[in-house]
């Protein structure tokens, strides 16, 4: 009996202490700058997004060690939208209205970004979006630190066409907005380069497709006409392993029909049996294998932070690294975290990326990045086989689609518009 009451007393002390710390936390919160982290920690997308949450925590931690921002400490507010698109919008609203965060770093899939957009614009927040995407968008409140199609897909196709002399093309993708739009752009681009319709095969599969037998057999037939064939893959995450396995089993090696992927990076490769993938290609703006002092330091810091010496880094992590540091610089430049001031200040901000160049925030809210093409090695790393000799500016509206050719995005006066038609000289607001 005595023991139990003692336990109870101990518990109540612990409870009181906990309450006190919470209370003091809220008191202290007044002089911190809050940064929202909006990445799924559960559900389908947790596989990719958890890493980005950790990256953000590491970056914020590091900034605090350097003395914070504007004399204040940064405080991460992590929420879990659980791979549920409408929940992304709800959580964004919560971050902006309840937590009053200065900026949000988050989203992975395009559909999650699209669901957050109206909220961010209504409440005039800031969103840094770190993933390669299909373009055809530029919002006043969003900064796109991932690749636009002209920073990934188009150079990749150029590489295949010029260096590997590919004549026949399979555009394979998962059935949703990013692959559909990217493939539309690529098809238009290939046709403009004189590729005949019969030499392009387009294929869409559902999310998480696992039975690739007949599609791979079709690809094999398509590629057996004697002309060099390549697969441009916008297949999303989970469907990739069975796809590559089937390719390997049906005897399609990277030498015969190379597959270039836009969604397979180091993180995804670490969960795959890499044997059937060796020699296949991936196009990104960053590889973990890049040999630069900045990159080595970043990887070391990341592995120490996660206490895992085998942890890999990947492209969207670098995007967050650049985006976060650009935001920090812009806030310092503006002297305030007020979104309107930061939006103005961040344009033109430069920050060295991890691959040795200096990325710049452009007027269309995209950044300049190098384009790298790598071959997958059996240790799950990508070895650079080709890269652009200078940084490529992100283009929000593709020049290869007739409807978006005359449109530009420019968030500086006098245009100040994300969807400006250079022919009619009209700003049609934004199309979602």
């Amino acid at each position, binding site marked *: 009996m005595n023991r139990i009451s003692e336990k109870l007393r101990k518990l109540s002390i612990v409870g009181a202490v906990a309450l006190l710390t919470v209370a003091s936390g809220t008191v202290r919160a007044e002089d911190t700058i809050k940064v929202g982290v909006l990445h799924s*920690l*559960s559900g*389908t997308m*947790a*596989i990719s997004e*958890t890493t980005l949450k950790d990256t953000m925590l590491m970056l914020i931690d590091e900034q605090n060690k350097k003395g914070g921002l504007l004399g204040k400490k940064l405080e991460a507010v992590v929420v879990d939208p659980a791979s549920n698109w409408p929940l992304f919008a709800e959580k964004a609203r919560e971050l902006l209205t309840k937590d009053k965060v200065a900026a949000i770093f988050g989203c992975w899939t395009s559909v999650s970004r699209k669901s957050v957009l109206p909220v961010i614009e209504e409440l005039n927040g800031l969103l840094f979006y770190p993933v390669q995407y299909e373009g055809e968008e530029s919002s006043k409140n969003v900064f796109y630190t991932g690749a636009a199609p002209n920073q990934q897909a188009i150079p990749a196709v150029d590489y295949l066409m010029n260096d*590997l002399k590919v004549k026949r093309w399979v555009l394979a993708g998962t*059935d949703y907005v990013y692959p559909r739009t990217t493939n539309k752009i690529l098809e238009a681009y290939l046709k403009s380069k004189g590729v005949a319709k019969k030499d392009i095969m387009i*294929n*869409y*599969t*559902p999310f*998480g*497709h*696992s*039975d690739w*037998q*007949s*599609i791979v*057999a*079709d690809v094999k037939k398509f590629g*057996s*006409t*004697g002309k060099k064939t390549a697969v441009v893959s916008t297949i999303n995450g*989970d469907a990739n*392993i*069975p796809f590559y*396995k*089937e390719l*390997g*089993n*049906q*005897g399609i090696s*990277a*030498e015969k029909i*190379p597959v270039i992927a836009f969604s397979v990076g180091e*993180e*995804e490769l*670490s*969960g*795959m*049996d*890499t*044997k*059937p993938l*060796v*020699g296949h290609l991936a196009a990104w703006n960053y590889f973990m294998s890049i040999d630069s002092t900045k990159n080595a330091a970043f990887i070391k810091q990341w592995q120490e932070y996660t206490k895992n010496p085998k942890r890999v880094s990947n492209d969207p992590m670098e995007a967050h690294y650049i985006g976060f540091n650009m935001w920090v610089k812009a806030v310092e430049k503006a002297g305030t975290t007020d979104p309107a001031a930061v939006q103005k200040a961040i344009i033109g901000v430069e920050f060295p990326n991890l691959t040795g160049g200096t990325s710049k925030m452009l007027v269309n809210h995209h950044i300049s990045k190098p384009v790298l093409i790598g*071959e997958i*090695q*059996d*240790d799950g790393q990508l*070895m650079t*086989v080709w890269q652009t000799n200078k940084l490529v500016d992100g283009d929000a509206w593709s020049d290869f689609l007739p409807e978006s050719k005359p449109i530009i995005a420019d968030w500086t006066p006098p245009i100040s518009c994300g969807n400006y038609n250079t022919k009619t000289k009209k700003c049609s607001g934004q199309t979602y």
Partner: protein
Amino acid sequence: MKANSIKGYCRLAAFLMLLFSLASYGDQEVSTQQPLLDALNNLKQGSMSEREQAITQLAGIGQSSLGILQALLDGKLFTLKSDAKLVIGIDNNQGYDISDAVSGTALGAIERADVNKINLTNKLRVSLRKIIGELELSADDPLIRLAAVKAMGNEDDDAVLALLQARAGVEKDATVLKAINVVFLLKEMNSSDKAVRIKAIEALKEQNNLDVVNRLNVMVEKDEGGNYLETDVEVRNIAKAALIKINSRLQLYSTIETVFFGLSLGAVLVLAAIGLAITFGVMGVINMAHGELMMLGAYTTYVMQQLMPNHLGVSVLLSIPAAFMISALVGIAIERGIIRFLYGRPLETLLATFGVSLILQQSVRSIFSPLNRSVATPEWMSGSWQINDFLSLTWNRFYILVFCLMVFVLLLQILKRTRLGLEVRAVAQNRNMARAMGIPTAKVDALTFGLGSGIAGVAGVALSQITNVGPNLGQAYIVDSFMVVVFGGVGNLWGTLVAGFVLGIANKFLEPFAGAVLAKILVLVFIILFIQKRPRGLFPQKGRAADS
């Protein structure tokens, strides 16, 4: 005296000659080693162009460099970080067993981090394969020679043809000779002599060879100006006739292939559904956590592979009983802990088991991380069974098909011939009567649920070989599983088997026309319509118990 002096001269000359030959022998020793060392030095340099140069140099040396080239192609050639020595390393799971690349002397084992692998690009791999093909053309094993001929066959290169020509003169093995012959016939199809072309087509039209099809297709095609690429009408007609013949064979093989694809997809569906056929079909429990029980089976395979990394094949086989046990135990725990309180309340069971499925998913995320785990495929399950150029069946699918049938037969026998099976069937038919006859229905319920769950675990082992092992594995299959069970007829194992295969084959025949997305939708619509017409599925259970 004169004769003597001549003898003496002769001796001197002989001696000198010996000396010379020795010296030149020594020279030769150096000269065979030197290019090799040069080449290897180049190989160690960073850039790909230097590597390319090194490979050409190695090829020039000939047979003696074959081992190094092959090791390079297989990714087994490393440099030591300590002294930049070139070594060949064989993976021993902790690190590598290394041996000197030049002399072949064993140098013991070494840590993975102590070596740098010599990387290759696709371009280099292609030229390596060709060079190795040329070197292996005189290998002892006819199978290696055949592969070499096939690797070289596509090259439109006179040097290659000359090599093959030389080989054909000494080749004894009939299949290799035939393969070489095909290469020449293909070449003759481009001959300027009409008679030679016709002869080549006639000889090749019995071949199941894709290159032949491509060449023939080119012959009957028009160029941009609207002129036929093959100018001669007679040759064109013969080519057309040959194409028709080959295409009819091609059609047959592609039908066989599609049926196989369908069967293997069906096998996966049956494996996923058959556990459900027991829990849902026999017991009437809607178990939304069924997919997660499969996921547990797949993770068991992963853990087994981590436990015994040196024996991939054995670990996969051992995973089967292990996964059965683990999933069965979890299943029994679910039944005892939750479902038994909810019998007769299907909606609540559905919600409760859905909750369980989320708990299982999230606990796997917490234990194993949300990332997919990599499960390696054993050697005997990768690759394909190449029947001919037109038809090849992949081994992993083949084994899964066989495995599915084995599981099915075993399950059928358990239900038909064991006491447990008898009791399960009795309880399924009439619970109250069974209890009246002294059958402990609660125990039977738990065991039946355990059996169904265990089978789900076994299905997970099979799935680990073809798809991702991650927390979402179960979700991907749960809908399909229910579809198969409902379509086949609730409570009927044969129904599940037939339904699985029918749906698999239907899906695969629809896919080429409709695309993967639409094919799935069409199958779903078909099932909905079918259920409208026959609500009890393909093989409805008969009898009074089923009607109630």
